[in-house]
């Protein structure tokens, strides 16, 4: 009770300082959450780009429509494939004519359609495209399988780079968060050292001495958490503006799951930092090194 009263009194006495520290901690929390949300957005965008790479599966000339439909149905069930579409020889020729109008006379002179039946397959990810192509080549009824290998390899290289970059950015954001939070916690702890010494002198119990600093930290952390939760939805919406996925099972908004994840991460991380700060405050209050105590608290 004494500790709570003292903490509330301190906070009432220094409202500006408390609010500024809370805002700074909230900024750290929101910035970390924003970086997390952006990384989700980048990964999502990359996976969308990956899905635009197609494998052209050319079928044997004269393959009957029943076999083609069966093959198409099998491919559409495959989990490694996002989408598979059939392009008939007639449609293939039309596409060719539309793409190369300058060769219209050549197309008119054709006595027989040379275009083979085609199934265009869109793999779920670029990394599995080579294995999928190999599998498709051995499928009965398939004449040949083609895809842009150089482009896929380039995409894989770029993905690797972006993923490494994201890991670095997330690690950096985490470190900045921990460092920023710890610095502020230490500044509060440091500001409370004289109070800790005075409390010991006037006969406070160990519990009262030990709780003086963590109680203050908890209040600042709670204020920062409330502030960050108020601002977080806007930041997440901004960070995930291009995220088209639906997370209707969590919230109608597409950013719902990201918001929930980000909020959980920042709150858990700040709790971890708070715990760390409290442990340090406890060690400081109970430090065995008497010379340090003498120098730092009683002979200021």
């Amino acid at each position, binding site marked *: *009770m004494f500790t709570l009263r003292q903490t509330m009194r301190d906070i009432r006495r220094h409202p500006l300082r408390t609010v500024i520290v809370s805002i700074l901690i909230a900024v750290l929390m929101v910035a970390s959450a924003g970086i997390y949300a952006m990384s989700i957005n980048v990964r999502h965008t990359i996976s969308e780009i990956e899905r635009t790479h197609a494998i052209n599966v050319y079928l044997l000339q004269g393959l009957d429509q029943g076999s083609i439909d069966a093959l198409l149905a099998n491919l559409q069930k495959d989990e490694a494939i996002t989408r598979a579409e059939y392009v008939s020889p007639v449609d293939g020729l039309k596409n060719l004519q539309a793409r190369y109008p300058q060769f219209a006379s050549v197309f008119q002179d054709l006595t027989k359609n040379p275009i083979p039946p085609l199934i265009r397959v869109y793999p779920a990810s670029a990394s599995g495209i080579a294995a999928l192509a190999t599998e498709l080549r051995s499928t009965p009824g398939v004449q040949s399988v083609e895809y842009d290998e150089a482009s896929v390899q380039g995409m894989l290289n770029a993905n690797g780079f972006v993923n490494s970059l994201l890991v670095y950015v997330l690690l950096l954001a985490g470190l900045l968060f921990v460092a920023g939070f710890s610095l502020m916690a230490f500044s509060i702890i440091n500001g409370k050292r004289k109070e800790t010494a005075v409390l010991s*002198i006037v*006969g406070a119990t160990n519990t*009262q001495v030990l709780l003086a600093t963590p109680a203050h930290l908890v209040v600042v952390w709670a204020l920062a958490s409330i502030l960050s939760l108020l601002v977080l939805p806007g930041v997440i919406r901004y960070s995930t503006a291009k995220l088209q996925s639906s997370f209707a099972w969590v919230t109608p908004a597409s950013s719902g799951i990201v918001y929930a994840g980000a909020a959980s991460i920042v709150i858990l991380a700040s709790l971890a930092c708070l715990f760390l700060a409290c442990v340090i405050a406890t060690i400081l209050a109970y430090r065995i090194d*008497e*010379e340090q*105590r*003498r120098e730092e608290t*009683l002979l*200021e």
Partner: protein
Amino acid sequence: MIQMLSVSKKYEDGYYGLRDITFTVAPGKFVFLTGESGAGKSTVLRLIYRAEHPTNGTILVDGVDTAAAHGRSLTALRRKMGMVFQDYMLLFDRTVFENVALPLAVRGMSRDAIAQEVDKRLDQVGLSGYHRRMCCSLSGGEKQRVALARALITKPDIILADEPTGNLDISNGEKIIEVLHEANHQGATVFMATHDLYLVQSTRLPFVRLRGGRKVEEGNF
């Protein structure tokens, strides 16, 4: 009663703050601990209120070995004492009332009872009406009187004062000594460290004199 029995204090760097100090401060007495700066006066007081442990020897406060005091027993030991420091050890971001009330607040006394006691102590040290003043805005003499009021508010059995007049002018210094005498007449044991030999001589009270961490003299002028 405070008893120091063959007490030595050696620091990590090998420096001896105190060497083989033995003396007794009888209950209800006003005793000065005197000596030049660096003689070990503050170390003696820190050992008594258990901010430090002695390297050798035993310190007994009312028969309790301070080295054995931990947790609740240490709190109980410190609650017997009121302490006054040369640098006041006040919380400057709090009011006079809050500083003086602190020892009672940690003991869980009611607000009304605390308010009454604070009134009495501030009156005793000549600071009536200073309740709402911030400690940072007080003069040196006023700060020391606030510190003294804080030390006296629990009516401690023992008052330890470490150079309480060291930073003050003569008038403020006399006021502090007067209040300490008053507390002593009401039954408190007062053990005051000072380098002011003139003060010790003029009061004709018992003293213990240290030099270079050793006791060189004990008695009355």
